[in-house]
């Protein structure tokens, strides 16, 4: 039998920290001023669209590439498998801070700064490292006999991937998609470095500039914050199981 006192204490402790976690969010929601004004003032229609384009592209590109690479790592045997996988794992720990400087100068040389490419390609690359790691784990969990049955049925590796194996991985793919979506949408440093054109700002970048112009009007700032944070939070509220499961499986990306 558990102590009544312990029960109460446990609930109190959990409750307090839950409130602390929630309080700033509540503050945003309650303190939000005119969404319409913030929307226009902060040019959020543009920045949200940019964010959407970049995010969807990154999710699609890294998603497909991760499925392909994860399939190879998970279900095929080839020379150099170990080494290549370690490289991917290494890539999971490489921070944006370490590569953003050379990326900027090289992309500037190539005339690609201030383009969607500058925002999409590096993030897709980093997300593919995570995605490959993630999908490999899923593919390894597929029973070997299923693959062999398909092989005996005359299925090519391509057919087996899309028709036999991947349909089993909907939850895994969904988790990968939501995590990459979150990380890409929330990315700030890359956008700050690569983009100087106002019309190409992503939502977080737009918010930062918005804040710079409106340090006094709290209501407006809160509204802007709400606009930028909302998409990810809404997806999170519907799919939090996937978010949490993904992060729990030792996702080693920030």
């Amino acid at each position: 039998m558990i102590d009544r006192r312990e029960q109460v204490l446990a609930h109190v402790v959990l409750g307090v920290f839950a409130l602390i976690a929630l309080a700033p969010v509540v503050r945003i929601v309650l303190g939000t001023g005119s969404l319409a004004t913030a929307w226009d003032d902060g040019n959020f229609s543009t920045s949200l669209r940019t964010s959407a384009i970049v995010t969807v592209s990154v999710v699609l590109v890294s998603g497909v590439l991760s499925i392909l690479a994860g399939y190879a790592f998970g279900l095929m045997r080839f020379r150099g498998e170990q080494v290549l996988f370690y490289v991917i794992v290494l890539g999971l720990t490489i921070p944006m801070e370490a590569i953003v400087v050379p990326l900027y100068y090289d992309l500037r040389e190539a005339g690609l700064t201030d383009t969607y490419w500058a925002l999409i390609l590096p993030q897709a690359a980093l997300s593919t490292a995570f995605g490959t790691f993630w999908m490999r784990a899923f593919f390894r969990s597929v029973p070997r006999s299923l693959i062999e049955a398909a092989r005996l049925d005359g299925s090519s590796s391509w057919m087996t991937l899309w028709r036999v194996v991947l349909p089993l991985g909907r939850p895994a793919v969904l988790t990968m998609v939501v995590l990459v979506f979150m990380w890409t949408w929330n990315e700030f440093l890359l956008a700050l470095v690569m983009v100087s054109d106002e019309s190409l700002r992503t939502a977080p970048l737009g918010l930062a500039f918005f804040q710079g112009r409106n340090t006094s009007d709290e209501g407006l700032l809160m509204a802007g914050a709400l606009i930028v944070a909302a998409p990810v939070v809404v997806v999170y509220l519907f799919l939090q199981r996937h978010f949490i499961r993904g992060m729990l499986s030792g996702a080693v990306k920030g």
Partner: protein
Amino acid sequence: MTRPPGEPRRVAYLYLLPGLALFGAFVLYPLARAGWISLFEWDGVTRGTWVGADNYAALAEDADLRRAFLHSAVLLVFYAALPVAIGLVLAGAASRTRVRGLAALRTILFLPQVIALVVVALTWRLIYQPTGWLGDFDLALPAVGLIGTWVAYGLCFVLFLAGVQKVPLSLYDAARVDGAGALREFFAVTLPALKGEIAVALTLCTIAALRNFDIVYLTTAGGPGDATSVPALEVYERAFETGEVGLAAAIGVCLAAIIFALSFAINRTAERAART
């Protein structure tokens, strides 16, 4: 060992090629470039001059850079140690009592992890405004640290909760029968069972601590003065504001190396501990 006929062999490389090519071009190559650039003194515009390892020497000699790394070490306490501790307490509390609405609790506590750091920074700036801590030379760093704590403890809680739920109830019952109180139970049963999860949590939090550009840039920008300078910020400033691109690259490489070393060390220790 020979491979059975018809098993995909070389075709594996075709599947790998697009992903590896992208990764190589936009992560590995830039990392190598950073290493190369770090051997030069360069303003980003004119030709650079070769300085070899001087930039790296500066990391140890330059007082400002040393201070930035020192701040990072301090922030590790706030970004990693504290959230792990809080997470353990919360998981411990949730494990022994039947908590109503545990699912909702998880959702709420994990929320700070999904909010864009820009928004987090903005919000906390407003929260701190009446206190003036972010402008205080002594309090600014802890204040920034606490933001990191706030972001991270939910992740730790969720991680540890999952780990705790795997512990067979019989272990707790045995401890109880032996006369252990809640505290003893925690140290004797809960903590040892969570070694793996603690390693993961520490790794994730450490990486977040060293990557904290977003929060610092948008709350204090390193200020007041140098009170909250951090390596991530130094990378940005020196690359794009003071024209010390080579040095910035060196700092970036150093950050990557530290992250890698720390992840490796944490996981090594966890593996060794798991074997005991």
